[in-house]
């Protein structure tokens, strides 16, 4: 910061610099001329040179405005130093941020996070075959029964807690995206916004086709796919292939936009966990607190959940679970719910499972 000493030197006295109109017009003319130049040069493609040229012209115009209109030329040098240091710090900001962002190498996630690249067993998975339907039935058993029920009638154990309720595959009414296999395939890939139908994008494409065919088989009245339907999901029926894997290079925007619906479960409302301090160590309480509290919340109210297609449901709180039999509870806890985020805890003995079951029932 150059310093201007005491200002008793009346160098510029009372007659401060007054900008003559003639000079003002000359500068204005130059500015207009340079604007025309910059618009004109933008039409030619000089490749990498275009950007520096545009910036150079803009800088000349900016300097004209600063030096003449803002009178930096015959102002005390201190003000110019002050003003131009700001651009120095802006440059530091750009250069050092750039040193990170432009030197990371290719680390960005391209496609959606698909499960392990297992090889495809089916040539044309979009064409329904008995083997595909059987594979679909087996996957349905793991992935979908908790909401859609064993027979796909939308009466699964968790169905009561869900608004809107899960689809009943036996009826024709109420299908949001349509009930052709390709349409079911799209629903499986992106889920349904505003409902808790999760996106199963982490399942390979052929599994999703298998599920679609099984769901269609529940109510054979459904119409078949036409080539245009298949094209809508990026499938060319003439050639073999994975069945529409060429998804867009990043997480589809429509899925991303679904992500903002956040269930805010008010902790105060949830009944407090039966805090019996003298519960023996290793009982249901201790196991619950260590393994389950992460998703299901300290007092079973379901932690602050995010609805990015995968939302740990606060099953513990739903009325319909009061009647759930012990073996259904045991199967969910030991095998988990693949596709959903509920992992299986295989290494639990029957006694521990009983403890946990009692503890969870007491928690409500």
């Amino acid at each position, binding site marked *: 910061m150059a310093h201007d000493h005491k200002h008793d030197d009346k160098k510029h*006295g009372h007659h401060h610099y007054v900008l003559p109109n003639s000079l003002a017009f000359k500068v204005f003319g130059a500015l207009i001329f340079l604007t025309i130049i*910059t618009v004109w040069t933008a039409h030619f493609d000089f490749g990498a040179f275009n950007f520096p040229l545009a910036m150079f012209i*803009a800088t000349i115009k*900016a300097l004209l*405005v600063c030096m003449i209109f803002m009178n930096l030329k015959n102002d005390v040098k201190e*003000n110019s130093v002050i003003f131009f240091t700001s651009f120095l710090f802006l440059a530091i*900001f750009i250069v050092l941020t750039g040193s990170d962002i432009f030197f990371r190498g290719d680390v960005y996630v391209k496609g959606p996070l698909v499960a392990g690249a297992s090889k495809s067993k089916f040539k044309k998975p979009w064409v329904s075959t008995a083997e595909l339907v059987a594979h679909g039935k087996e996957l349905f058993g793991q992935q979908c029964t908790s909401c859609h029920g064993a027979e796909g009638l939308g009466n699964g154990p968790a169905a009561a807690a869900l608004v809107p309720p899960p689809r009943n595959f036996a009826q024709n009414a109420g299908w949001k995206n349509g009930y052709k296999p390709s349409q079911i395939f799209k629903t499986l890939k992106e889920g349904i916004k505003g409902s808790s139908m999760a996106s199963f994008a982490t399942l390979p494409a052929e599994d999703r086709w298998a599920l679609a065919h099984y769901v269609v088989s529940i109510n054979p009245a459904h119409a078949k796919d036409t080539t245009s339907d298949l094209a809508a999901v990026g499938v060319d029926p003439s050639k073999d292939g994975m069945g529409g894997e060429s998804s867009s290079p990043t997480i589809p925007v429509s899925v991303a936009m679904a992500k903002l619906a956040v269930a805010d479960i008010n902790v105060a409302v949830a009944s407090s966990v039966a805090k019996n301090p003298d519960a023996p160590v290793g009982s249901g309480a201790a196991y619950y607190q260590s393994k389950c509290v992460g998703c299901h919340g300290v007092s079973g109210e379901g932690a602050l959940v995010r609805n990015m297609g995968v939302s740990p449901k606060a099953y513990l709180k739903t009325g319909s679970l009061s009647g759930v039999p012990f073996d259904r509870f045991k199967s969910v806890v030991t095998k988990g719910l693949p596709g959903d985020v509920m992992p299986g805890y295989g290494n639990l003995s029957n006694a521990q499972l009983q403890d946990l079951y009692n503890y969870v029932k007491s928690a409500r």
Partner: protein
Amino acid sequence: MSDAHHGHVVEHPGSKPHVVAHHFNDADHEFDASKQGMWVFMVTEVLMLGGLFVAYAIFRGLYPEMFKAAHAYLSVKMGATNTVVLLTSSLTMAMAVSATQRGERNKALGLLAATVALAGVFLVVKYFEYSHKIHSGLLPGGLFGTEQNAELIKNFPKAPLFFSLYFMMTGIHGLHVVIGMGLILWIMKRTSAKEFGPHFYTPVELVGFYWHFVDLVWIYLFPLLYLVG
């Protein structure tokens, strides 16, 4: 509540006298301090708007093709007219300041009015641009109309980013234009109240600085957004 006790007083025939604040030695001292204070304020404006230019630089570096494709959706014609409008308003502002310095009060009032009018024209053109963008769904990030611009999204999924930057940069610049108009109207009120003249014109010059700075920012915004090579 200005401390009106024993400060210096500066007059000019036909205008109100100006009382120099008590902690300054004389009018020049106050003028130099105020001017330098304005320059330091300019530094903060450069760095605040600079943040947006940094985001622009980073994302243009990451996705040059997307920027080239997305910028085609902006109308160079409207951008160019706005540039000319702002440059003219910068001219009228500079002449208004020198008119005040020469004591030509009515000429200054006229020029200030012209500057405000031109700023109004700038905002009107901006209004048409925005309504066209909103109508065709070219909105920032989450609000981007994917159906209307399906093919742009298909080959440039990150195109909404360009429009996020476009709306943020031109939006905040537009806000500064509105603030500038308010300041100039305030100066016009005080000019008509005969407060300014060769003896005291600091506020006019400082508002002039602010307005030239707003024009300066647009001089960079225009090529960066509209003329992506």
